């Protein structure tokens, strides 16, 4: 299974709509980095509105892909984290501290714009 990555001007948009298995998550990590490289993208929004569970493995993959993208020079914002997912992550002791987040896709794009202009 591949997660589609859409290009919108200088940005890449991803809406995760599948129940993430480990392989799909790792494949996505690689696909996203390749796409950033190909398109020279400045920013990425990963929307998690449809994701109803993030366990420690998926959290690590997401945290890592944010750092990897930063290394390449692209900013990443995670959006739409559900209440149950936020509560579960904190219960688990997973903080994702360095990861920029926003309520929804629209605010995510605003945040990217601000960060890139700053």
């Amino acid at each position, binding site marked *: 299974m591949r997660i589609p990555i859409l290009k919108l001007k200088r940005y890449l948009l991803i809406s995760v709509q599948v*129940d993430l*298995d*480990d*392989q799909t998550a790792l494949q996505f990590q690689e696909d996203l980095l390749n796409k950033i490289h190909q398109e020279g993208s400045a920013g990425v929004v990963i929307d998690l509105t449809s994701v*109803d*569970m*993030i*366990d*420690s*493995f998926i*959290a*690590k993959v997401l945290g890592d892909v944010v750092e990897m993208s930063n290394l390449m020079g692209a900013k990443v914002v995670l959006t739409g984290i*559900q*209440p*149950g*997912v936020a*509560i*579960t992550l904190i*219960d*688990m*002791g*997973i903080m994702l501290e360095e990861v920029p987040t926003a309520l929804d896709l629209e605010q995510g794009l605003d945040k990217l714009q601000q960060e890139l202009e700053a």
Partner: protein
Amino acid sequence: MSVQSNVEVHSEWGIVSARQAGRNLAKELGFAGVDQARITTAISELARNIYLYAEKGEIVLEGIEGKEAGGAKRGLKIVAKDQGPGIKSIREVMEDGYTTSGGLGAGLPGVKRLMDEFDIDSVAGEGTEITTIKWLR
């Protein structure tokens, strides 16, 4: 009440099937969204441990009844069993941040916090059985 399902875990897909079965049972038993997420996440961690460390095993999910002061209570019990190498030091695996797989080391201590009851039975060389329960509030 005897809603029970067994999911074999011997591939990454087993992890996905186990958590889907868990979410369905949690819904059926009347757990709210946040507790559904807690239960599904706990199952995912336990199933991943089976796959990572024992290669194969099973997750047994069951709707159960227990007693409390005001009468009966209902809950969901997860049993994760394998015949893997067993856990050498239970104290170490229950520490936040302890990992032998390069993960976050949040798995087992995380599961314990997500659920209401938690018990590990592990014999080196024979296997591990983890039983954990979430009660319906």
